[in-house]
């Protein structure tokens, strides 16, 4: 299948006082056409930074350190800003976690939605306005024409996120990056937005969905990458990953999922806390919290190895086996 997005050995971070801090370390991933690919991880694991690196929107003083990002085969790393700008909003677009702060508070919704058309195509205002009403309707905004005249603060959270999606989808991009698109929403609205994501991907758009919520990932993703401390620690088809989690972190994460059906008195936990970027462990990022931690885990970073059927894993528990 055709891969819309191909990220190869991407590293990104920023220079602190004396040393270089890598928030994203050697990340490779693929987003095929019409699929939803998920990145799951906790705060500070580098998932948002990866997304921003793809879009070329890393905030100063952060930057891409090495690696390559291919959008439909075109290299984005090192591409002149002007060319990249032409791709943003037309070939690839992004929606953010906070629909409230991600919309300009002093600009009418309609103007914000049609903005991408006005930037990338030479069309009249009427034509642009017409198309923005159309796209708003298609992402499920009722009375779209009336909403176009509203300011963002007059809309509910769910509607705002739909507006964000309409804004991102108006030029029918090849790639949509969604950074925690439902985290700020209520459960019933979250389910609607996830449903919308599925519809969008069935139209051929490749979606890179970033979330901390295993539930969201399980519901919509076709393929999952698990990130921890800046690295991809495991990657597999969604069903495979939830069936046969291999990495101790993934297992811990899945074990700590609480069921609606209830369970034992004491919940499973992962001991310790998420590591700080400034004080990353030398070896495997998870080693300080890992119950199966060995000597080499503290010392060296394990390689990402294939455990069969494209199920990749970065852990010494499996590296040995693969070598044998």
């Amino acid at each position, binding site marked *: 299948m055709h891969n819309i997005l191909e990220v190869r050995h991407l590293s990104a971070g920023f220079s602190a006082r004396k040393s270089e801090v890598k928030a994203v370390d050697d990340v490779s991933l693929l987003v095929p056409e019409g699929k939803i690919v998920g990145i799951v991880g*906790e705060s500070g694991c580098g998932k948002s930074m990866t997304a921003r690196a793809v879009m070329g929107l890393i905030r100063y003083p952060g930057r891409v350190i090495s690696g390559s990002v291919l959008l439909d085969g075109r290299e984005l790393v090192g591409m002149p800003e002007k060319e990249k700008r032409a791709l943003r909003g037309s070939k690839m677009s992004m929606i953010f976690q906070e629909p409230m702060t991600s919309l300009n508070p002093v600009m009418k919704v309609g103007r914000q939605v049609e903005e991408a058309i006005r930037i990338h195509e030479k069309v009249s205002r009427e034509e642009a306005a017409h198309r923005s009403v159309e796209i708003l309707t298609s992402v499920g905004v009722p009375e779209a024409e009336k909403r176009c005249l509203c300011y963002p603060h007059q809309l509910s959270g769910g509607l705002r996120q739909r507006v964000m999606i309409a804004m991102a989808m108006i030029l029918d991009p090849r790639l949509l990056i969604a950074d925690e698109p439902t985290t700020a929403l*209520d459960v019933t609205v979250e*389910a609607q937005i996830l449903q919308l994501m599925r519809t969008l991907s069935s139209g051929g758009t490749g979606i890179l969905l970033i979330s901390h919520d295993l539930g969201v990932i399980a519901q919509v993703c076709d393929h999952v990458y698990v990130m921890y401390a800046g690295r991809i620690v495991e990657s597999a088809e969604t069903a495979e990953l939830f069936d046969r989690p291999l990495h101790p972190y993934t297992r811990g994460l899945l074990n700590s999922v609480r*069921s609606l059906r209830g369970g034992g008195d004491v919940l499973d936990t992962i001991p310790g806390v998420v590591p700080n970027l400034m004080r990353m462990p030398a070896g495997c990022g998870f080693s300080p919290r890992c119950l199966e931690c060995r000597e080499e885990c503290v010392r060296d970073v394990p390689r990402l190895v294939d455990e069969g059927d494209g199920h990749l894993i970065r852990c010494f528990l499996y590296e040995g086996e693969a070598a044998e």
Partner: protein
Amino acid sequence: MSGYLLEGKDLTKEFPAGKNKTVHAVSKVSLGLVEGETLGLVGESGCGKSTLGRMMIRALKPTSGEVFFRSRPLTAMSGKEFAAVRRSFQMIFQDPYASLDPRMTVRDLIAEPLETHHICSGKKEITERVLELMDAVGVPGDFLYRYPHQFSGGQRQRIGIARAVAQDPEVIVCDEPVSALDVSVQNQILNLLSDLKRKRTLTYLFISHDLSVVRHISDRVCVMFLGKICESGPTGEVWAAPAHPYTSFLLRAVPKADPKERTDASLLLTGEIPSPIDPPTGCRFHTRCPFAVKQCAEEEPPLRTRGERTVACHFPLDRNGT
């Protein structure tokens, strides 16, 4: 009277919102806590669960209605009378970053309730007590003189919990105590809360939007929608067979962490939550309810009791979900 430790009757809270407009945050809600239980209060944002929780311990004055603590009217007490029972109530907050004064050390933070209620006196004695509390919540005693910003979110929440239990309260309102934390840390805090409850005979009013958290921690649950309670009962039973359509849709909408159990699009609620400024007439859920008939729009459904469960719906669902 009733067997409740803490009971709210017909509590209503309205906030002014601009001219001639009122936010009906909570409308005539009655709620009772049995001693030693954990009561979950569930609902989406803006449903009034936090407001209700605060009214129950007089952290917020109700517009109308009354709260009884051991059958004594809490709301009617004078400031002086309330000061005498105030020690029985505490609260744990959602945001561990905002709920600890950034300019106080851990010792001073935890010591504040001890000093306010004259539980112990003398610097040394207070410090010893603080150290005991830190130990009880799993924060190392070496951190006594550190400031909140030097801790992670989970540890801060532990400090907040230590502060809450310092005065040996009877009732603690937990307002979304884990929703700001990382997934892998949430369970640590939930386990700590269960553990403390067992050791100190506490009663929790546990406010959360996360249905799985509520399922795990609470004995009974109240589901709120737009300032009203629509259903209550033992958590296991309600979750297994919801009687109110809203509860049922809510449970179905939760994204389950199992790719084999994907939510069916046809079983989702449509539309948005109506505004609490101008709530719908009759049953407040009728604008989103696929089963609504004319009666639902006109008549407000009364709370009906069936054994341990209550439901406010003209046409409650039976066990098969119809």
